[in-house]
């Protein structure tokens, strides 16, 4: 039952139909609006969310972030996968 919701490096993620990731002019910050959820992601989370496009898989996102922040992939991979799994569990993202 939980098989399809387990996130790994090959997972391709998109925002759920009624999740909105947008820039809020009042706060000058990115926000995620979803049913019963309102998230104010921090800078690292925003960097991940900006790469969610329904095409790239999690591995590609991790590689991209590694290049941008010049960080070794093993340092960021765990954090990124944990965050993506949490957002899938919250039904903000889906695969």
């Amino acid at each position, binding site marked *: 039952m*939980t098989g399809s919701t387990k996130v790994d490096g090959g997972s391709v993620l998109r925002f759920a139909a009624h999740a909105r990731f947008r820039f809020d002019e009042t706060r000058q910050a990115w926000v995620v609006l979803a049913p019963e959820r309102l998230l104010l992601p921090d800078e690292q989370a925003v960097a991940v969310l900006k790469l969610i496009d329904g095409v790239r898989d999690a591995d590609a996102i991790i590689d991209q972030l590694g290049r941008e922040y010049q960080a070794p992939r093993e340092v960021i991979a765990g954090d990124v996968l944990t965050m993506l799994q949490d957002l899938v569990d919250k039904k903000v993202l889906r695969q």
Partner: protein
Amino acid sequence: MIATSTAVEPPLALLAELTHRCPLRCPYCSNPLALERAGTELDTAAWRRVLSEAAALGVLQVHFSGGEPLARRDLASLVAHAAQAGLYGNLITSGIGLDAARMAALAGAGLEHVQLSLQDSDPGQGDRVAGLAGAQAQKYRAAQLVRDAGLPLTVNAVVHRQNLGRLQDMIELALQLGADRLEIAHVQYYGWALKNRAALLPSREQLAQATTLVEAARVRLKGVMVIDYVVPDYYARRPKACMGGWGRRFLNVIPSGTVLPCHAAETLSGMRFPNVGAASLAEIWHNDPAFARFRGTDWMPDPCRGCERREIDWGGCRCQAFALTGDAARTDPACALSPDHELLAAARTETALPAPEFVYRQHSAVVRRASEHVSPAP
């Protein structure tokens, strides 16, 4: 008064209570004991202005609520106005009065999400608590309409001593109804619910069983249905961060246009709250004395004043402090550090007695008993 160190941040969410009219009469209704009548409701143009002002102030989400918001014929036009202003629109409904045409109009207007209330898994008991025969069946139809419209559905199951024995069934029912999320909310004791506390407050054993059951269901349903769980304050050691702090995250506009920091704030006798007819939401949020009254930490008494949790729970709930102690500026008695914490122990003794009959919500000053006007459960 000492100036607070941080500037006032914009609110995140607006609860738009469009009307107090409702076909149901739940004995734990969050509306005040003194319900407002249709004639005092803001008109469409006024609500549009409120929604525009909310968006300009920085509000991100609007919850259309009531009463039953479907009782307003202009609901879809208000939803559309909110969506155009960039607000994320959520409908909080009993499902009564939802039909295919209205569902299509709401979805077309840009509604993002529906939260449907559930009184029980047993239809007879559900109708009894709602105070309306046939209510349960209408809820099932409403859930189907929401699914057919492709909108995410949250089932909000309010739980108490009279239905906790069927919690597992309620979870299964929410699954059958196609809910993406289930909110299992223990009754919070203000207004009508406080009046009915002895009929609703669960025992410690009931609460413990429910919590165990919810935790197991969460594991089992991970990725299928999200379960949020709201526990009652009466067994807590520390209070909830009510509304994320007074005047910090949230504002509520009631049917007549009065603006409150939380939906129970009108119970605080002696306080005067502003109205959208006299000031903009921005003026109210930033300058109104009622919004400043319990904002931040300067107002706090001991033991909150020196407590390390003062900016975590903000001293708990002002309305609960007032309801139980008569003084809104005291520490929430739900906190074990509060000198009034024993008041909750007294209330818990009610749970050992047989549940009294419900006092249903109603307009009349004359409060009738349940047996006089509810058809018996089948």
